[in-house]
């Protein structure tokens, strides 16, 4: 029989036990359930064959309590190695697009796979001195070309990459193939037959750009179609600059017009419209500067005009007039300063004239004369100071 006091003690013990025991139990349940939830998802992904996501979920589970990682990690690495090896085989066979895909898969499965990272991100460049253009004959392949030009059929990769081929076996009779001469590598063809223009290309083994070129054929075609319009637009960029230049010229913004037209001329140096409007822009700017009496700047613009039209008589006339007016103005200013006994300022003005034309109105003689006077004055001052 339980006494009332015993019952009270029992209740007290149960209450304390419930309070103290509840928290860790809750924590334990929580840990287990969280871990289980991740494990369950990991198993589901593993079952579906999505090992990358499975590993992620197991890592999350492991964060809580359970280590499920090693098995899948090993499996993943082994799978990655399988894809990497497949990639190497494709590459050796000249199937570059397929090789690239396999390297990417390997890296997806094992993100720290050093060899796969190296394959995909190394961008070593090698120098190609020059190249010869070879037309493929019936039954000829790249290995034979490599044997002929390098004495080593295994070097067909160099030719394939130089020509951006996604598959080294895909060459046909009549196709023109560039065979590069590479610095430091024997080339078995006389230099007389080589193209003289030096070219350089990237390392056949590891060029990043090849990634785009090496995508499967159908991907390339889709991409090409998608961007057809944009390519057209980018090709028209020169036309846009030309149009901008003409527009700016019509608005009287000659300096801006020249900048835009220069862009056109950097691509098409003989572009007649750009040449004509550049000439006109310089000319109009020259006239405007001449009217503002900024003769030196005006002279500079008319001289630029001569680069576009060397027989421009008006330009020659303006250059002469600009020079004369510039010289006369500064000559007169010099005379005025001289009359006011401001010899230093007078010399400065005449110096400006002398830079343009040393013989202008004996300006050279005047400068020397002014300098002598200054010297004499200095000497007089000095002797006077000594006397004092």
């Amino acid at each position, binding site marked *: 029989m339980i006494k009332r006091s015993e019952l009270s003690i029992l209740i007290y013990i149960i209450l304390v036990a419930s309070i103290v025991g509840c928290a860790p139990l809750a924590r334990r349940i929580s840990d287990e359930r969280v871990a289980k939830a991740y494990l369950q998802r990991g198993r589901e992904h593993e079952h579906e064959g999505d090992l990358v996501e499975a590993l992620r979920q197991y890592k999350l589970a492991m964060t809580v309590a359970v280590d499920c990682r090693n098995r899948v990690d090993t499996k993943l690495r082994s799978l990655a190695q399988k894809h990497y090896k497949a990639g190497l085989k494709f590459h050796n066979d000249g199937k570059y697009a397929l090789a690239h895909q396999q390297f990417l898969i390997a890296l*997806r499965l094992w*993100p720290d796979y050093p060899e796969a990272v190296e394959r995909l991100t190394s961008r070593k460049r090698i120098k190609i001195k020059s190249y010869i253009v070879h037309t493929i004959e019936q039954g000829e392949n790249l290995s034979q070309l490599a044997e002929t030009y390098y004495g080593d059929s295994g070097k067909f990769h160099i030719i394939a990459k130089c020509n951006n081929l996604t598959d080294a076996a895909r060459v046909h009779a009549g196709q023109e193939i560039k065979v590069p001469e590479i610095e430091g590598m024997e080339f078995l063809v006389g230099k007389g037959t080589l193209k003289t223009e030096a070219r350089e290309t990237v390392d056949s083994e590891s060029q990043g*750009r090849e990634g785009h070129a090496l995508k499967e054929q159908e991907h390339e075609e889709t991409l090409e179609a998608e961007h057809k319009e944009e390519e057209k637009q980018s090709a*028209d960029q020169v036309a846009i600059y030309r149009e901008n230049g003409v527009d700016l010229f019509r608005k009287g913004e000659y300096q801006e017009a020249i900048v835009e037209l220069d862009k056109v001329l950097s*691509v098409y140096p003989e572009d007649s419209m750009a040449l004509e409007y550049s000439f006109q822009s310089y000319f109009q700017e020259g006239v405007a500067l001449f009217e503002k009496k900024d003769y030196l700047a005006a002279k500079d613009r008319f001289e630029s005009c001569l680069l576009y039209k060397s027989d421009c008589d008006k330009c020659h006339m303006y250059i002469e007039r600009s020079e004369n007016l510039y010289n006369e103005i500064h000559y007169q200013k010099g005379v005025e300063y001289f009359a006011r006994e401001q010899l230093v300022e007078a010399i400065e003005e005449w110096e400006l004239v002398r830079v343009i034309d040393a013989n202008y109105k004996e300006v050279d003689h005047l400068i020397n004369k002014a300098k002598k006077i200054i010297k004499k004055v200095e000497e007089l001052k000095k002797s006077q100071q000594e006397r004092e």
Partner: protein
Amino acid sequence: MGTACKRRYRNKSGAILWILFGLGFLFQSSCATLGVALRASEPAVSEEKSAKPIIFQSEEYILYLLQGGETPVSLAARFLGDPKRSWVIEEANEGTPFERPQIIVIPLKEENRGGLTPGGYQVVPILCYYGFAEHCKSPLCIPAGVFELQMRYLKDNGYRVISLGELLDFLQYRHALPRRSVVITMDGGYGSAYDIAYPILERYGFTATLFVHTAFVGTSKSAITWDQLREMKADGFDVGSLTLSYCDLTKRRAGEDDQAYMARIKRQLLVSKQIIDRNLEQDTIYLAFPYGSYDQRVLNICDQVGYRIGLSVEPGGNPFFADPLALKRNQILKRDLESFITKVKTFYEFSLQ
């Protein structure tokens, strides 16, 4: 023992059993509130108000129980040491409501530096703008209103505007990028980049890289000035070279021999870099090719001169394995939003199973 006594005993025993049962029930109920409830996307845990955040931690992950009031930014600052890396937490918990009592996954190691998935891979679009005006005539000019709409589209759709420096890390397989990363560039050195684009970009918290041909800077009323470039640089913008005089680097001049041509190209690349270096006190490593034109010999000179990123105008996005000196760029020439949306694709479908 008498019957009365036995009945009393039974009654007492029954009462005790009932009390124990009741206590057990209470105990179970109280513990159940600490149990795990699973939501659609991520597991939730304790609803106990007084519980501290349950943090499970391994070398690679932290599992954090939201207490309320935390944001991806505050968690990134606390656990990743950089509030700007909030995208790491957002992307790791996509579809999970960010509210208590959810468990949030905080990855401590970079998970997918190449952006590779079974269905394809991440590509980073680089947008190429030229001039801006309130009203434009030329296709190389974007009206202010249209630019504003385009930036709003990026913001509203979760795009993150990254710098070319961040892109370079991605291209070297060093760091992952937010899934929806995009780079903004502006070519030509027009003053409108400062007058019109800069305030709009600031409004959205975006930055860009400006490419200038140095002979043009500060020379006309439509050209940007060095002071303006310095101001933008101080605000997180980058400045790169567009050569000295915006000349097509692949074109040889009439009568120019190979040596003279190479010397001219090198001068265009090197001197423009030196001028920018000097004026902005930086090491200029970004280059945009005038007209997007380059060839392998130009790339080699770029390498020698010290450029690390070269931008063409070949359309498309850039995966991590792209050549940093020959990146693609999407010119923004049209003004409709549909066309703009096609230029900001960040994923390339390609089987990697």
